[in-house]
């Protein structure tokens, strides 16, 4: 596992996306996106339903093929930086009735390191257990995954990503417990749905609605104007979020 500060900074952007367009059939999901995520930040991707947030993550991970453009992770294509990246998919993307235990799922995060033809050994199981313990669910290691609550299932996925021992975490799911990964040089990119908590948890934000609306430090980019542009100014949650933001800014300044 990573000791505190064990990962030196590379000085490269954690993610760089250039001229990215992704289309399903003939419908574009992402259009002409240019994005640079600096190293060592907590980043929220924010946007309405169908804005392409998940697709952006999946494209970075090579799960979805882009129509045009390129993606780099720490200055290299994803394929060569694979071991640097940990991934938390959406909880609904798998079958939770699958016959496997929480600890086995976490061990899957180590498969890349274990390699072909070898089975996970005791050492790997111990790593898995310690990842579960870091998230406070060590006692659930031997549970079948369907017997976990939704929040516990999320944490199992997070523990699996921790086991990957990465320096960039991509999370397709808003999570409580993100702080378990925080460390200076580590970058965390989260698809986030709760606008009000953005300024509280994150220091960097990406506003997305098929096109990139804005990206940058929260205090610069997370403005009512940008949110309006992202959400089309319909949502009342939006206004409340903006108010919450201004309130928090006001208190910061005082």
């Amino acid at each position, binding site marked *: 596992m990573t000791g505190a500060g064990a990962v030196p900074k590379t000085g490269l952007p954690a993610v760089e996306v250039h001229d990215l367009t992704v289309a399903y059939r003939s419908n574009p999901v992402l259009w002409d996106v240019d994005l640079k995520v600096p190293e060592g930040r907590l980043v929220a991707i924010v946007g309405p339903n169908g804005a392409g947030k998940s697709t952006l993550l999946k494209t970075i*991970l090579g799960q979805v093929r882009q129509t045009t453009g390129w993606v780099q992770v720490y200055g290299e294509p994803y394929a060569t930086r*694979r071991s640097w990246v940990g991934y938390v998919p959406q909880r609904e993307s798998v079958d939770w009735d*699958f016959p*496997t235990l929480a600890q086995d799922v976490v061990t899957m995060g180590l498969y*890349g390191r274990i390699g072909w*033809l070898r*089975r996970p050994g005791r050492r790997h199981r111990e790593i898995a257990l310690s990842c579960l313990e870091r998230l406070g669910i060590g006692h659930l290691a031997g549970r079948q995954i369907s017997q976990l609550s939704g929040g516990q299932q999320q944490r199992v996925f997070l523990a699996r990503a921790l086991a990957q021992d990465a320096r960039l975490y991509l999370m397709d799911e808003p999570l409580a417990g993100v702080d378990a990964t925080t460390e200076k040089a580590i970058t965390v990119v989260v698809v986030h749905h709760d606008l009000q908590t953005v300024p509280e948890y994150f220091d960097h934000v990406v506003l997305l609605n098929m096109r990139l609306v804005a990206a940058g430090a929260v205090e610069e980019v997370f403005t009512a104007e940008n949110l309006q542009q992202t959400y089309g100014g319909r949502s009342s949650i939006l206004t409340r979020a903006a108010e919450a933001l201004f309130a928090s800014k006001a208190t910061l300044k005082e």
Partner: protein
Amino acid sequence: MEWTYTVRNVLVGSSLLGLTGGVLGCFALLRRQSLLSDALAHAALPGVCVAFLLTGSKSPEVLLAGAMVAGILGAFAILGVIRNSRIKEDAAIGIILSVFFGIGIVLLTWIQKLPSGNQSGLDRFLFGQAATMGTDDIRLLSAVTLLVLFAVVLFFKEFKLVSFDHGFGVSLGLPVKLLEFGLTSLLVLVVVIGLQMVGVVLMVATLLTPAAAARQWTDRLGAMLLVSGGIGAVSGSVGSLASATIPRVPTGPAIVLVSSVILVFSLMLAPRRGMVWAMLQDRLVERRIRRENLLKDLYLAGERGIGFGSWVTLPILMGYRGLSGSGLLRSARRLVKNSLLERSGDQLRLTADGIREAAKVVRKHRLWESYLSRRLELPPDHLHRDAEMMEHALSDEVVDDLDRRLGYPERDPHGKPIPREAS
């Protein structure tokens, strides 16, 4: 039954097929390819016919190679239809299954009218004829079994990951497509081998039924593969022996019937998941609820002024919930045995322990009502029914936590006192 060469062949063959089918069936089941495997069985038929037409050979290797190609083509055709049109998966499977099979039937009827095709024996692929199995077939089946088991052991961890979380496998850089193709190819291989033994329609059960039964007994994939293989082998041997013993019972249906019986048994009685246990559990909970209600009613009667621990007659209690006297007495019997209740004739009263137990139930009810009214701002007349259910479901720790969060309220929203733990 005579222990003949044929019987032995069929027995060995059916057990081997059951074993491999059971193991691979687990992956088919978990990857939601149950009905794909059905389609594969049907799609193989034209392959058999074309292979025969092209080579004129009846050797199992040639025919199976043809079946294999057609099966994989069918699988790709289904994928192609789903990906490139608005047709959904179920309909796509139905289309490929029936159209490929139609092609197969047309070719088959045509072949049977050819001079060379008269005795081709291709129709055994339709219904399966285990009895025609020769040593060649057994040898082929053994080889396939070994190959399947070898592959599953070698790539267990990768197959597991691909079956559970495809996307994560991609992000780890596993050749997911190749692994999936490998699994599907093994599936096709077993399906086409099985066709001549159990036939087109029943092949799907050879794969799925043991796997579905095994799933009831275990929560781990490794164990599930073992149990499923075991159930498959047992069904294969018992079924083939039954069909050898009882006249005019074909092998394939006998095997499927045995595994189906095992499935029903597993669904009913497997520990934890068995439906019988779930039903018993429900009954127990129901009885506990009835006992708790009786305690509570006695407590409330006491609260209304007659004093806790005084006698209450059965007709009064019956009036509270419209229950029958015999039902109440049944609940009371257990409570009397646990000395929470005393009974004399048709009168009941709480003991000191009983008062304490009843107070707990009432406390849960009133705390929950308080919680609802405070947190959800529900009007008082909406609270009771919900609390009536929650009082039986809340655990003691949760209730204490609730109490703490509410700031240890004295009274519930209706103004009734909330009993404290007797301390």
